[in-house]
């Protein structure tokens, strides 16, 4: 391998992080919103309740816009793989490319059925239309599964050997696809999509209810997506634990960065909060043996610290650790929100009356996105300086092309406009007047 002289490495990393960070939100919406739409349409068809049908149609319009933006922002990523990291793709493209080829087909099906679903409304028989909506979400989830398989491979590279001259040999793309990080990472990602999608769709209805609009429309619009998100949250905490234990086994240096553990320790403590300074967590609340218990389910387990790898091979601890802690904190806060909802439902078959609950729902929208990004930062920045764990460093993967920073600047401008106009367009779509039959549907137990 030739050494790369790339003064713009920082910009290449920023560009990749930025475009992935933007796409991940759209990808999550692409997985979960189709299910919410189909669920609402199905309820509407079964009960004849126009509220469900109206919600389904509105969400479908937003889904159409988000899908278009997600489709193009996803395409950009496949360009960037080659433009920014040609040495990584050139060496390992045939090892870890297979899941992307599969993802291509899943995306294809998604695009076909979303076209049929969005433009077939009132043209196809209702049952056929409903059925045409189901493959969209399934294909979306399959796409995520395959993409995360490739990311899992970067964390736990399998399916090849590197010979003494540095050549990649004995390539087995199936072994690479089914790397050990695949299952915990993929399920964690898919559940995250349902939490993000559910919370983001529910939040505007919480906002409307806080502002005094409490018709059946707002109530159903809040309850249906929020229920999905709140069902996914406890599962997510269990899967998150599984994912963290996988990291503990396969990427001990990443776990050490997530926890700010410097020295390899038997019965390692866990610190809640605080900041990592001078090889130690300051101002955190220590839980004795906590990390050993969480990571290995054994209070006496030995947890490897950052000191077990050379200083150059350690991830930036505070970025990783704070992201990780924030993600976990948001996850537990959402669990609390879900329990509150469950208790209220058991008591009086309704949403909690408290305005604080509605505030919580509104907050859960952006908070779910923050948790998503934090999780992504944890796994990606936690992998640094490696692009392929313990095999290839990011700085050896980057292109040697000059002036790549300008591509980053250009993309920043384009994405800023895209985000702005997405919001404007979605706002207009969601603020169109409601059909009269839905707008007048007040519920008897409305108490404001």
């Amino acid at each position, binding site marked *: *391998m*030739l050494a790369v002289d790339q003064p713009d490495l920082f910009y290449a990393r920023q560009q990749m992080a930025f475009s992935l960070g933007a796409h991940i939100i759209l990808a999550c919406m692409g997985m979960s919103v189709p299910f919410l739409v189909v669920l609402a349409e199905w309820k509407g068809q079964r009960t004849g309740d126009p509220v469900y049908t109206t919600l389904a149609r509105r969400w479908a*319009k937003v889904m159409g816009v988000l899908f*278009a*933006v997600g*489709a*193009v*922002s*996803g*395409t*950009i990523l*496949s*360009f960037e*793989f*080659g*433009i920014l990291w*040609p*040495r990584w*793709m*050139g060496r390992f*493209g*045939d*090892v870890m*490319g*297979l899941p*992307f*080829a*599969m*993802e*291509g*087909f899943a*995306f*294809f*099906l998604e*695009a*076909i059925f979303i*076209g*049929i679903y969005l*433009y*077939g409304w*009132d*043209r*196809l028989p209702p049952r056929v239309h409903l059925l045409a909506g189901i*493959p969209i979400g399934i294909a979306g989830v399959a796409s995520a599964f395959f993409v995360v398989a490739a990311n899992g491979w970067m964390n736990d590279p399998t399916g090849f050997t590197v010979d003494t001259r540095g050549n*990649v040999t004995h390539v087995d*793309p*199936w072994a690479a696809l089914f790397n050990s990080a695949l299952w915990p990472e993929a399920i964690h990602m898919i559940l995250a999509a349902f939490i993000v999608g559910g919370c983001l769709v529910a939040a505007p209805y919480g906002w409307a209810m806080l502002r005094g609009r409490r018709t059946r429309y707002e109530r159903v619009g809040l309850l249906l997506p929020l229920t999905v998100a709140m069902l996914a949250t406890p599962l997510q905490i269990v899967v998150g634990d599984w994912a963290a234990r996988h990291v503990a086994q396969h990427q001990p240096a990443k776990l050490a960065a997530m926890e700010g553990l410097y020295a390899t320790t038997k019965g390692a403590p866990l610190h809640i909060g605080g900041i990592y300074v001078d090889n130690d967590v300051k101002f955190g609340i220590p839980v004795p043996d906590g990390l050993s218990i969480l990571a290995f389910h054994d209070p006496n387990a030995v947890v490897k610290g950052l000191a077990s790898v050379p200083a150059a091979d350690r991830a930036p601890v505070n970025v990783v650790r704070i992201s990780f802690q924030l993600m976990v904190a948001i996850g537990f806060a959402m669990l609390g929100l879900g329990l509150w909802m469950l208790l209220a439902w058991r008591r009086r078959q309704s949403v909690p009356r408290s305005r604080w609950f509605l505030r919580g729902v509104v907050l859960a929208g952006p908070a779910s996105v923050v948790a998503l990004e934090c999780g992504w930062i944890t796994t990606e920045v936690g992998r640094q300086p490696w692009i392929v764990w313990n095999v290839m460093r990011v700085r050896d993967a980057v*292109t040697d*092309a*000059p002036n790549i920073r300008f*591509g980053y600047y*250009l993309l920043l401008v*384009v*994405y800023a406009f*895209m985000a702005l*106009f*997405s919001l404007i*367009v979605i706002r*207009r*779509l969601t603020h169109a007047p409601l059909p009269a039959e839905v707008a007048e549907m007040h519920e008897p137990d409305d108490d404001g």
Partner: protein
Amino acid sequence: MTLAEACAAAMFVGITLYALLAGADFGAGFWDLVAGGEAKGREQRALIEESIAPVWEANHVWLIFVLVTLWTAFPSAFASIMSTLYVPLTLAAVGIILRGAAFAFRKASETLPLRRLFGATFASSSVLTPFMFGAVVGGIASGRVPAGERTGNVLGSWLNPTSILGGVLAVVACAFLAAVYLTADAERRGHPDLVSAFRMRAIASAVVAGAVALAGVFILYHDAHDLFHGLTHRGAPLIGLSAAAGITTLVLLVRGAYAWARFSAALAIVAVLFGWAAGQYPYMLEHSLRISDAAGAHATLVAILVTLGVGAALLVPALTWLLVLTQRGTLSASADH
């Protein structure tokens, strides 16, 4: 045929379908751009929007298909192309973002200023993207992308006579395809005035395409001699077929057989693309990298062909359904709720 050639052929089928389907969507954007003022162009724009709205995303996926097949089956070629040609590819990518997002935004907007802004963005990026892809092809076909990990000439690889020719030809070919398809669409939907408008555009773009291709003969002779040799020898029958199909399309357009004109127009494009492939064979990167040398591991080539087979089995019924629904006019972009 070796495994590597089978993968290259599959990828080339993807390139061809992308050109025929997404190319026409880009071409429709070109006609949107030149449709005239708000009142004058309204009907044309409505037809364009209705024709491409349900299908452009599915058509776009052929590009993804090509990219993932390229990097999985031919990782070194992918790396070389992407690093040397990163400027036109970045611009193509920006065009793709702007085109897709602006088109979706325009469909969802009702106020005139926003529709104008999104429409102009959609239309101009519909020209930018095919031009850049054409320039990329020109760079590869004229042997300006070196194999290996080192980046080649980042400007000369796409700012050269063959690339400019490729870019212009791509834009004209997209416009030609779109005009022919839109003529047939307008006839099917019963808009006689739009039929004659797009028929004129189809004829004009066919003539321009022919003229550019003729000029291209001289450009390639001087700038890309190996490609010229390939096109005039192994690729010659295909180039001849393309010219014949183009002339047939003109005749069919003049005689009003628009549905058939779509097929001969598509054939003209397919033949010229296959002519390029034949002219460049056995090189993946002209001069510098053969298909066999670019190929990845044997196990991966097998895996990708298996994946393509399974994927096609899933895809073909779905695509057929989409095609049947669009051809029957079941899917409507104008239905709004």
